[in-house]
């Protein structure tokens, strides 16, 4: 087991429990203030829980949302720092990341762009070859054009190493094709937790004439009504086909997340 969390409460977080197998890639989503950073800090060991248990197996690396770095350190210094403060260090991997994304090695990080600083933070985290990698809003500082490339590169690294990756985001459109597990937090409560494939298989959207009740089985997550039609997004263990004029449609990960977030508002 990569990460094991049981009955954890801290600040906004209330009684969260979940397990993440090692080597899994998990997206942690939720509105601002939902408790994503608190949860990641607990996993990183920077905070201790008021109650409950947090366990992360092996060495953990955490990259905070604001990508803190020593302003006077150059990228080369930052890598020397990583080498000097870690039992395991992969210089080639760290340097490889920096050169791949064109980060200048000899300029103080205080004089670099936010994106370049983010790359230094990633390089230090990846160079330490962690068993668990926690990234808080990893893409927030990056140019939309390189986000896909960075995501693909990160996924490539963790897949090679069997690293357990947890990344938080509030940009839902970045999720598809990235995570194989989803944790959805709203106001400190864990609303959805599970494998993405299972979640997609257990949610369905019914569209049909204006109605107050859903035409099929399942718990209604979100109902939307317009003058001409009603739409119900329901959670059900096994989606069934519905009678005409209703249509059932599979939901996308983005629809699913947005529906849960919207209801939680």
């Amino acid at each position, binding site marked *: 087991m990569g990460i094991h969390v049981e009955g954890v409460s801290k600040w906004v977080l209330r009684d969260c429990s979940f397990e993440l197998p090692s080597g899994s890639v998990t997206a942690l989503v939720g509105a601002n203030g939902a408790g994503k950073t608190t949860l990641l800090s607990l996993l*990183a060991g*920077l905070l201790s829980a008021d109650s409950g248990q947090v366990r992360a197996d092996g060495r953990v690396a955490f990259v905070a949302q604001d990508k803190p770095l*020593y302003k*006077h350190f150059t990228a080369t210094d930052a890598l020397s720092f990583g080498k000097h*403060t870690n039992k*395991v260090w992969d210089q080639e991997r760290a340097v490889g990341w920096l050169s791949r994304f064109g980060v200048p090695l000899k300029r103080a990080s205080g004089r670099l762009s936010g994106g370049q600083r983010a790359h230094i933070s990633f390089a230090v985290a990846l160079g*330490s070859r962690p068993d668990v990698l926690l990234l808080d809003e990893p893409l927030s500082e990056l140019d939309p054009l390189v986000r896909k490339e960075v995501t693909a590169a990160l996924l490539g690294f963790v897949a090679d190493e069997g690293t357990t990756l947890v990344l938080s985001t509030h940009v839902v459109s970045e999720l598809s094709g990235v995570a194989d597990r989803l944790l959805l937090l709203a106001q400190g409560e864990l609303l959805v937790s599970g494998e993405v494939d299972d979640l997609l298989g257990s949610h369905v959207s019914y569209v049909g004439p204006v109605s107050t009740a859903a035409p099929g089985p399942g718990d209604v997550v979100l109902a939307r009504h317009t003058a001409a039609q009603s739409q119900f997004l329901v959670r059900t263990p096994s989606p069934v086909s519905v009678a005409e004029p209703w249509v059932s449609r599979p939901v996308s990960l983005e629809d699913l997340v947005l529906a849960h977030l919207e209801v939680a508002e």
Partner: protein
Amino acid sequence: MRGLLWLTWRQHRWVLCSTAVVVLLASWLLIELDLANTPGDAVPLSGFYAQLVQTAFGGLVGMFWGAPLVAREFEERTYLVAWGQDVSPERWLAGKVALLGLVAVLLAVPIGLGDGYRGHQDVSWDVFEVSPLVQAGYVLFGLAAGVLMSALVRHTLTSMGLTLALYVAVRMVMSLGARDHYLPTERVLSEVGEARQLPEGVQIVETGYLDGDGHVMGMPSECTAFVNPQNCIRTHGGAHSFVDFQPIDRLPGFQVAEFFAFTAFAAGLFFLAFLRLRRGWRPSRSHRRIAA
């Protein structure tokens, strides 16, 4: 540990080097003035300069090396980086304190060499703080005060202010109150009104009058109006006048005692700072490693 020394040097090299330059210039001037002057009755300006340097050094190191040490990591959020690797916060602090403490003690040596006016005749209670050992104790204490305040308040300016306050308070209490009593004083008695014979160079701690039974008595209020109150004191039962003092040959021993006192304070404060870091950020990542 080598990695931490590298980190400490990389992070603090400018402040270390600039302090070293200032200290070497200041102590060169001290020693120059010391050799150029001959001791007289009055303390020349250079003597005050020496006192200023020797009073300030430990406090300044505490304020500028110690007080920002942890606080700045919090202000710039780099504690997430510093303590997010395989090094625990306690080991990180140990590495920093080891290097900074060593350099501070080395710089204390020239600071404690010259008093600015007495030349080679340095043996005097007036220049108690002119001693590399005493200065080393002060600077360790200043550094420890800074590190502890830094770990407690996590805000650089506040931490600097508190460091200065703590340093000044402890130095004052020790030099005004405690230092004269590291060993019991010696006492010389004389008849009231007679000239007394004191050994040379002593530090006078207390003077007063004894009654016929040998008990210390206060100055009778009726006598305070007299220019020469001796007769009045005698009629009110005063038998002897006394002087309590520390002889000059105790000076080196007292300086050693001062060093140990301040080093012990420093050890206590460092210990509290370590406890603070340990309690706040446990478990670090290696502590949470699960045995297979």
